C-alpha cells in the first residue's frame, strides 16, 4: 500500500515539475508579454496543483493537508490577479495591432 502511495507521489510531483519546466521554457522563449504570461500561469497553476496533490498523502493529518490545499488556492488567486494586472499594463504599453 505504502509503495503505491509513494509511486503516486513520485508520478504527481514529477508531472508537476514537468509543468514548471514547460512554463519556464515558455517564459523564456515566447515572443511577447501576453503569451509569456499564458505559459507561466497555466503551467504554474497546474504544476503546483500536481505537486500539492502528490504531497497530500504525506501531509500527516487533515489540518496539514488543508494547509497544503490552501497554499495552492492562495497561489492560484494571487497568480490570476497579478497576471491580469501585468496583462493590462502590457496592453496599455503595446496595444495589440
Amino acid at each position, binding site marked *: 500500500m505504502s509503495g503505491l502511495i509513494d509511486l503516486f507521489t513520485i508520478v504527481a510531483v514529477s508531472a508537476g515539475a514537468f509543468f514548471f519546466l514547460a512554463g519556464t521554457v515558455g517564459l523564456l522563449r515566447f515572443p511577447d508579454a501576453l503569451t509569456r504570461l499564458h505559459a507561466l500561469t497555466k503551467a504554474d497553476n497546474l504544476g503546483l496543483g500536481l505537486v500539492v496533490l502528490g504531497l497530500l498523502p504525506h501531509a500527516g493529518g487533515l489540518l496539514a493537508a488543508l494547509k497544503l490545499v490552501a497554499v495552492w488556492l*492562495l497561489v492560484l*488567486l494571487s497568480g490570476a*490577479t497579478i497576471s491580469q494586472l501585468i496583462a493590462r499594463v502590457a496592453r496599455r504599453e503595446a496595444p495589440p495591432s
Partner: protein
Amino acid sequence: MTMASLFDLALAAAVLALAWWTISTREAFAAVIDFVAYGLLLALVWVRLGAVDVALTEAAIGGGLTGGLLIGAAARLRATEAAAAAERPGPAVRLIAAVGSALIAAGLVAAVLSLPDPAPTLAPNAAANLAATGVGNPVTAVLMAFRATDTVLEKVVLLLALIGVWSLAADRFWGGRPGPHHQADPNGALAFLARLLSPLGIVIGAYVLWVSADEPGGAFQGGTILAAMWLLVMMAGLTDAPPLRRRWLRLLLIAGPAIFLAVGAAGLWLAGAFLAYPVAWAKPLILLIEVPMMLTVAVTLGLLLAGPPRRLE
C-alpha cells in the same frame, strides 16, 4: 556525498548566482527582482539550517517587504540610471575592490571552518530554562524573555526609523497622508483580490502569532503579514492611508514598546527584576505583550513602506 548535501550545494550555488546577478545586472529594476528571488531562496537556506522562525522572517522581510520597498524605489529612480552608469569606478578600482573583497571572504571562510568542534552552544541552557517562560518555542523564549532587552530596543529602532522617514516630508504636508492616493477600479482585479485575501491574511497573521508560543512564528512575522494586507487594501484603493497626525494612529505606533516596558517595569515588583515575569504568569504576560506588538509592527511596517507624508487630503 548524500542527497541532502547535493541539494545544499545546489541551493548555495543558486543563492550565490542570484546574489552575483543582483550586483552585476545593468538595470536597477532587474537587480531588485533578482534580489526578491534571492530572498525567497534564502528562506529555504534557513530551513536547511534548522531555523524555521528565521525562514519565516526572511521570506516576509527579505523577499516581501524589502522587495516591495526597493521595487518602488527602482521605479521612481529609473531616470537617474544613465547618470549613475557614468560614475562607475574605473577597472583599476574594481580590480582592487574584487581582490580585497575576495581576501576578506577568504579570511571569513578560514575563520568559519576553524570554529571549534564540538561547537559551544546555549541550547541546553535555553532548554533548561524554557519552562520558566511558559512558552515552548525556544526562539520566542529568547526574544520575549532571555533577551527581551534587544527586542524592546529593536522596537524603538523601528519607531525611530519611521520618524526619520517622516522627517523627510515637506513642511507643508506635515501631519498629512503618506504616499499617493490610489484610484483603483472598485470592480477591478486588484480590488477583488484585496477583498478576498485581506480577511484571510488577517486570520493567518493572528495564527502565526498564536502558534508562536510553541511552534515557529511570532509577533513580527504575523505583523508583517498584517502589514502586507493593509498595503494591499490601500493599493487597491479600498481605503486611504491615514493622516499621520491622528492620535489613534500614533497610539498604535507606540502600543507595542509601551506595553512591553510597562510589563517589564511591573516585573520589578512581581518577579524582582526589570523585564522578568513571575513564572505562573509568564505565558499570559508574553501574549499580552505580543498582541499589541504585532499591531504596532504591522502599522509601522506599512507606514515605512508608504513613506513620508506628501498630501494634506
